[in-house]
């Protein structure tokens, strides 16, 4: 060594300014905001939600009353979108039906996620025998034909909104469960989980407070997608005549008017369009979340 090291300790560095804290959620939002399609989806979704929340209060026509001549085309009366085969206001049906559709879709999705996360979390966290048992159950549900099973549930227990939501949730949680399980298996081997264990964290804390929040990104995306699926599912059931007869929903409007499709295109087109827009909004937002929550894309 011809020259000794200049010095052996840190010279006083001018303290660098400490940046603002940026939580992972905020980071994701920044990313999401830059995604045009996702923002359009979000705007559309907010519009649909606002309609479902406020619409019925603002537009007072009842969706169940016969108000005009049956099968009046759009623009031919004060009921802009026309009437259905019994003379009910289609616009009123759409507005009220939106609320029902979204509630059923939302609660079915919530149920899907709840069951899926519960099953997946225990299977993934504990592994071994618990995992085996839970996965057998999951496989069993997975191989049952979904729509058929939901139809059976609804026919057996009656076509109330609650039963419909439960039926949809009960048949669609399996993919969430698998996803959660895989995430839990991956995350439980992470060093930060080990570090928590080394400071005596309980299983409950590890599952719900440490692993679950970190498993959330793919689960949120999958929850969004299952909300979309649930809406389609509900529409499908209603279309088959298995909707709640006491609640107007988009699917039911289509189902009710099915025989008159050729005479009254509007009676099925508008609710179909509504379903399409709602599901599109949800999947655009889901896609945006997928990108925003993906740490690898976030780097750039």
């Amino acid at each position, binding site marked *: 060594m011809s020259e000794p090291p200049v010095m052996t*300790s840190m010279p006083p560095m001018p303290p660098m300014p*400490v940046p603002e804290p940026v939580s992972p959620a905020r*980071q994701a939002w920044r990313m999401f905001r830059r995604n045009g399609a996702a923002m359009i989806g979000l705007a559309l979704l907010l519009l649909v939600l606002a309609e479902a929340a406020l619409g019925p209060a603002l537009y007072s026509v009842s969706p169940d009353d016969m108000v005009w001549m049956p099968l009046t085309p759009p623009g031919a009366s004060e009921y802009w979108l026309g009437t259905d085969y019994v003379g009910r206001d289609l616009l009123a049906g759409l507005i009220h039906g939106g609320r029902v559709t979204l509630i059923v879709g939302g609660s079915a999705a919530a149920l899907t996620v709840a069951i899926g996360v519960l099953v997946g979390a225990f299977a993934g966290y504990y592994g071994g025998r618990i995992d085996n048992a839970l996965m057998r159950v999951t496989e069993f549900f997975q191989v049952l034909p979904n729509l058929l099973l939901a139809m059976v549930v609804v026919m057996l227990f009656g076509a109330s909104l609650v039963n419909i939501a439960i039926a949809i949730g009960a048949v669609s949680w399996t993919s969430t469960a698998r996803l959660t399980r895989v995430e839990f298996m991956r995350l439980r081997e992470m060093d*930060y989980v*080990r*570090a928590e264990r080394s*400071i005596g*964290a309980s299983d409950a804390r590890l599952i719900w407070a440490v692993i679950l929040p970190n498993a959330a990104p793919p689960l949120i995306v999958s929850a969004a997608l299952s909300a979309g699926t649930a809406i389609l599912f509900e529409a499908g059931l209603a279309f088959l005549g298995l909707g709640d007869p006491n609640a107007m929903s988009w699917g039911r409007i289509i189902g009710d008017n099915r025989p008159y499709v050729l005479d009254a295109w509007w009676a099925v087109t508008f609710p179909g369009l509504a379903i399409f827009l709602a599901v599109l909004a949800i999947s655009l937002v889901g896609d945006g979340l997928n990108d925003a929550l993906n740490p690898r894309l976030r780097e750039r």
Partner: protein
Amino acid sequence: MTVPAPSPPSASAAVPAEAPLLDVRGLEVRFPVRGGVVHAVGGVDFAIPRGQAFGLVGESGSGKTTAALACARLAEAAAGEIRLGGEDVTHISGRELRAMRRRVQIVFQDPYASLNPRERAGAIVRRPLDLMDVGPKSGRQARVEALFALVGLRPEQQALFPHQFSGGQRQRIGIARALASGPELIVCDEPVSALDVAIQAQILNLLARLKRDLGLTYLFISHDLAVVQHLCDEIAVMYLGRIVERAPKRALFARPLHPYTRALIEAAPSADRAVGRAGAPRRRAAAIQGDPPSPLDPPPGCAFAGRCPHAVDRCRTEVPALRDMGGGQAVACLRADGAGGFV
């Protein structure tokens, strides 16, 4: 600066002063995998006196991490005994285990994987205080600040999230978290291998300073001989789940006895050795050939026999035991004569 001193161990008070802080005997750890059982750790013995740094080196998959996790009760020992301050902690649970966790903490290898991305740095360092109920609640915030200062971070940085720190800074957070409960033993699992060379020096200096100032004991894992030589007092070399040689630092480098230890020392690229070179053949040929065997299918006899230039038939059938060679040096080789030669 209020330096968090190690909490005086209540259990070790009755034990004679010479008793090692950590004493591991016949430790075995197995993992069931598809197609068999991995004997990740196949019977290791070592002891670490209080205040010393014990290095564990060896190649990837030799079981260093697994052995260390078992010592911290984060992996289940299939056989053997782990004593902390004279007290058998191999199978304790509940309250006793929690008490033990306060005394043994870990610093992990990958600073990007060892911090919960959803928690602020301050919360990460504080968590052990809350979970293990260390000190009065009112004093915890101050303690977190003292810990930040101790590892060279600024108190304002407590509010930041892990992704807002560099690798070296993250490792400092990990060290602060490990120090929070005032542990006596810190397991450092390759704490600098994921860091840039320039940052490595900062962290190694920090660890050396903490050891000196707080009287800490380290179980220090690395695959880098130079790092282990720098920081540790005693070193064990692992190969395929077993310790093949164990010696005080000076003895190990002055007189390596196991052929694998020699190969490791030979293979380590060294600036000094190369600078003196004159012209052509820049290095001797690699001392050993071949790849390490799979832990799923360990060979009978000495695991190193397949790559060993000194192996004889007996090596392929007989598992060598760790033999004491004097001066604190022990070697698991049938042929090592204890003076650096082979019988």
